């Protein structure tokens, strides 16, 4: 993207130009510029939900596509995510106040024995951006931690993440426990992490393996819609 962003006065841009500039600034990981632009759009009367979906998520979608296509790499995606996080921090309390639409709810956490959370954090952020309420359990979660959160939060989706070959089998421990308790089908179970693959997801009884944060969001939307349709058909 351009290197002349220093010369651009964000407040002088019209709305379309500003959103385009936010796409560039997200791509370049410029957190302060994103925060400034979010505040400008709020001052111009944009709803927090529109800023989130049209500017931030729109920009991160480009980042996600270029990551998927091998144009961008992890460090740049993390810089972009950090910039988006800055914008989200401003919008989040306002989204609650303004009652933005909510697609569903997700409980997410890295499994026991694993402290890696970069992918999990990206998924959580993109899910929030897509309109999901996300309860993040953090790292190193034993089955009891997941069960407790499922009971107290009553989410639509359980998300589990692992980066290590040695820790990914723990996902099956969690799913088997859900089956034993007769509650497996109450939740959509999505799994992800570098050493996982679709075959592993199927083998452990997850609903889907998600290759990256963008796929996680699309998969979650699809499953939640399917779940709602099934519930409507039964009603």
């Amino acid at each position, binding site marked *: 993207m351009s290197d002349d962003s220093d010369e651009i006065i964000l407040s002088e841009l019209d709305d379309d130009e500003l959103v385009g500039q936010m796409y560039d600034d997200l791509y370049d*990981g410029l957190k302060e510029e994103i925060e400034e632009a979010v505040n400008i759009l709020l001052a111009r009367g944009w709803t927090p939900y529109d800023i989130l979906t049209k500017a931030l998520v729109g920009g991160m979608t480009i980042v996600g596509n270029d990551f998927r296509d091998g144009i961008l*790499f*992890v*460090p*740049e995606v*993390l*810089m972009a995510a*950090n910039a988006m996080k800055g914008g989200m921090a401003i919008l989040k309390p306002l989204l609650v106040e303004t009652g933005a639409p909510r697609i569903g709810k997700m409980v997410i956490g890295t499994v026991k*024995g*694993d*402290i*890696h*959370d*970069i992918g999990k*954090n990206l998924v959580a952020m993109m899910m929030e951006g897509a309109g999901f309420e996300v309860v993040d359990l953090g*790292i*190193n979660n034993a089955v009891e931690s997941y069960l407790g959160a499922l009971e107290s939060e009553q989410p639509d989706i359980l998300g589990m993440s692992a980066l*290590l*070959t*040695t820790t*990914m089998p723990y996902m099956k421990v969690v799913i088997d426990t859900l089956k034993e308790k007769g509650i497996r089908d109450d939740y959509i179970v999505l799994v992800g992490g*570098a*050493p*996982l*693959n679709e075959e*592993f997801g199927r083998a452990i009884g997850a609903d889907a393996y998600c290759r990256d944060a963008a796929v996680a969001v699309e998969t979650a939307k699809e499953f939640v819609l399917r779940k709602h349709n099934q519930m409507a058909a039964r009603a």
Partner: protein
Amino acid sequence: MNPPDDQTLTDTGLPPEGRGRILLIGCGALAREVLDLKAANGWDHLDLHCLPAILHNHPQKIPQAVEAAVTARRADYAEVFVLYADCGTGGLLQAACDRLGVAMLEGPHCYSFFEGNTAFAARDEITAFYLTDFLVRQFDAFVTKPLGLDRHPQLRDMYFGNYTKLVYQAQTEDPDLTEKAKACADFLKLDFERRYTGYGDLETAMRGL
């Protein structure tokens, strides 16, 4: 035979010499250690072919690369043995080796087999970040640059915030390397521990061939 320089092992690997009954197909990060064991024990029946060590950072590419190497070279040898552990392939390398009918190293990764798989598993230290001799020498190529820490040092906490210590698993006694490993720990703002492992289960596995 002397190994090529570390950068060549990282980017290109090492071709086989074309001598010996058993071909070892392994990670470039193990070249020095394997050649050292070969020389020290007179294991002339073993030939070594290393794939680029940087595959360590792209484990999803390892099964295909190993399969291609086995297929291309196996006709020239009586036996092929794969000097990789699972190495982040999520069982796909084991599946490829099973399909090809070749054996491979046991364990999740080199940190485990250098220490000894049983001893490593017993430690259960989930907040340790490991470096071997090779990875200390190639720290910039495997950590600093691919993680973007040279360009974006502020990402350090996102990558390493949940770690508490850097464990340098030393395969050899080398004070200079220990100093460099300490500097790596300082750079990542982690506590430092040096643990001499020697060649661990790598040596045991090669001795059995």
